[in-house]
């Protein structure tokens, strides 16, 4: 079973994403900021990361940059944020994101991209 890490400081967002992903048969773990996400990522094994940008202590960019230094942890990452600004796009990819999405995310849209990134057939 595929395992996904959701990184977001808002508990409602984490629950919402969790519901969508669990309904599609994935297992999910959560972290509230980049440092906690790193701890979980380095000790666990994830097939995908869904990462918010603005978070306390360590933001999403920094998390991905540090994660991408670890050769064993190169699973795809979706970065989600509130703004569609061009600059954020560029920075997200530069930090190691594979996809950038703007909140709020619709379940169908989420599932399409998650499946795509994990190399699965779309349903």
């Amino acid at each position, binding site marked *: 079973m595929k395992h996904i890490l959701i990184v977001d400081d*808002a*508990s*409602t*967002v984490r*629950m*919402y994403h969790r*519901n969508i992903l669990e309904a599609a048969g994935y297992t999910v773990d959560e972290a509230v900021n980049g440092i906690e996400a790193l701890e979980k990522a380095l000790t666990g094994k994830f097939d995908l990361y869904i990462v918010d*940008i*603005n*978070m*306390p*202590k*360590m*933001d*999403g*960019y*920094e998390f991905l940059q540090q994660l991408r230094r670890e050769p064993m942890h190169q699973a795809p990452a979706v970065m989600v944020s*509130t*703004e569609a600004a061009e*600059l954020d796009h560029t*920075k997200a990819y530069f930090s190691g994101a594979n996809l950038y999405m703007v*909140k*709020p*995310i*619709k*379940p169908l849209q989420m599932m399409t991209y998650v499946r795509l990134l994990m190399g699965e057939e779309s349903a």
Partner: protein
Amino acid sequence: MALKKSRKKNTTQSQNEKRDCNQIRNELLSDDASSRRWAARDIVNCPGATHMLLDQLNNEEEPSVRQVILSSLTQLGDSEAVEGLVNCLRSEDASLRNEAIEAMKQLPEEVAPIMATLLNDPDPDVRIFAVNILESLCHDDVEQWLVSVIRDDEHVNVCATAVDLLGEVGSEISIEALTGLKDRFTEEPYIQFAADLAMKRISGD
């Protein structure tokens, strides 16, 4: 070789203790990061500290020094410090923005008077940060502020952030606005989900 006690007794009150404010100000500009960190701590007792720290914050590249500057600004917590922190909310640098939010969360009383202005800022990101800061504000108006956000703010993500917090601090008086929010964003599954959750938490069933 073995376990042994440290030989030199702690030289108490190291060289730094007896520095005057001029020296501290110079050290804030030193090339050595450790000197800058200590200067950023010690300067809080000198006149004009807030101003110097804000200047340095904008130029400082070493993250560890920035952290100490923010801690000292939080300790000073005057209106000038708050104003400087507000400017950081507009920075392109995500970590500086988030650090400023955290510092402002520690200054609820100083931030409360400018809350209404922040919540009406033209930049939706600044409004989102303002809602983030509300989380730590112990103020009679917090719920009312959140209600106005979800009733009036055009931007879906500002509302989304407010709903998240209402689930924690909201009471019966928010229910109507939450229902209204669902009607405003019928096409947004996230808002439907978040508003329902908040209402469930508020009414407790």
